[in-house]
């Protein structure tokens, strides 16, 4: 989780990732941010994120992103 927040902070340092649950819905992240983050996640955790995972629910909060990473690591 800490590593994920580190990655997110590198993109948008001003956000409080502990509480924010509308990263996509509130348009805090745009497509550009998400793609950058996804590239980093794939690198860091050796997982494959594809278009099917690119739904707002997976990126709305740091917790959701962590959950996505956990699921993909198990596959």
């Amino acid at each position, binding site marked *: 989780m800490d590593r994920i927040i580190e990655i997110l902070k590198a993109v948008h340092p001003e956000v409080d990732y502990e509480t924010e649950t509308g990263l996509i819905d509130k348009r805090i992240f*745009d*497509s*550009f941010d998400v*793609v*950058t983050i*996804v*590239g980093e996640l*794939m*690198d860091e955790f050796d997982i494959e*994120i*594809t*278009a*099917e995972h*690119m739904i707002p629910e997976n990126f709305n909060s740091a917790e959701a992103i962590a959950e996505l990473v956990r699921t993909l690591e198990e*596959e």
Partner: protein
Amino acid sequence: MSLISIDFALFVCLALLIYFAVPKKFRWIVLLVASYAFYAQSGTENLIYIAVTTVSAYICAFLIEKKKEGMDAYLHDKGADISKEEKKAYKAGVKKRQKLILIAGLLLNFGILAYLKYANITIAYINLFRLTHYGRTDFIPFRDFLLPLGISFYTFQTMGYLIDIYYGKYGRERNFFKFALYVSFFPQVVQGPISRFGQIASQLYEGADFDFARLKSGFYRIMWGLFKKLVIADRLAGFVSETMAQKDAYRGFYIVIAIFAYSMQIYGDFSGGIDVALGVAEMFGIKLPENFERPFFSKSISEYWQRWHITLGTWFKDYIFYPLSLNKGIIKLGRIAREQKMTALGKRIPIYVPMLFVWTLTGMWHGSESRYVVWGLFNFVFIVLGTELEPLSKKITAKLTLVESDFVMRAYRAGKTFWLMSFLRLFDINRDVKDAFTAFSYVFQGWGHFDINRIFENLSLPMEEMIVAAIAIVIMFIVDLIQRRGSVRAKIFALPVPVQWCFLSLLVLAVSVFGYYGPGFDAASFIYGAF
């Protein structure tokens, strides 16, 4: 049968009557029959194309899911006996076979679309090349066909479904006829919106209860769509094309007015048509996705494209942009650039390369001529510039102590976006790229010779027509302004019933009296002349 015709209105009434007369579980069948009856009206020979798309997508989805079921069964039986690596390799093998089926489906359907859309323009280019380079005049004859109704829309919608099935977003529709309804649902088959299966499937198949409030709401939306289409768009169409055809004689302010008028025309035309489609669907209890979200209030071009033709934009985003952007090759390319100390470039590659591709395709989607590709590329360049110049723009704003949320700043940003997008539309209303640039250069000439009477007399927009158009545009603007604070219809329906009917009567009256029914439509000119 046009969405805007008496025939269509009668058709919808009849379909509604039968829809609510039959038991709920058969209602989807009424929609399917109505959809195919509607489609056959555009030419029975067109049915073959939509049938091929329906059958091929159904079979591909079936095969893709069968592979998954086989995999699940295998892993269920043998999962405990094989290693993690073996499991991974097995899954990868199944995924590869699923991908092959998907690619076959995509190639067939986009192949048909590409052939129908680009065969004749390709022949034209070949003929031109042979003539200019070899002096050959034995031209290859053009193919004799018309584009089947809504082929771009239903192809995109159906291929989106197939890709979703491949990704396992949801299970496939097992009932072939229900699936055929999803492909052909008549309000949306002509010009969208491009719906996702998950958005509308259950609504299509479950059947809606009769609800007078919903019928009224749908009717309101249809009338509002007709207002935008008939009172604004159709009224301005003649003026726009006349001005562009005679642009040598009408430079400067005339061109600027025509560009503005075309933006109003295309918005009224397209969003009005979508309002009709959504209103009709609403009457059947089906909520189609919105395609416009007040695009002229956008503060940047990328925001504009999230608010104009939304369902096409999200289609390209989900099915072209992301798959390319998340492609290992592209990410690797970005990483190589970063490792070479070109961090800025590395960060941009996984975004701009797919975007360039998306905009080329978006251009091609809009039309087969090269001017549409150039239009797409201009959009790409403007979006890139907008993104790259944002820090500079922020600095300037801060230096001038301007506040982005102030009305003046928002109006400035919206105005800038509006005019940039409007100028780009010169590619739409001119014959080729050169012509569009000529029209653009004329914007800066002949400002001293403006005489509004020449518009009234020579450019198919008499004074009374211009006044009606101007008032209608102001009404459209005000309605859009109100809409920023929630649904306008919801606000109207909160008023006392007599007031609601007053609004509706005014709207119906405006469409019947001020709707532009074109030359030769005697009733319209008669009613209009009597005022």
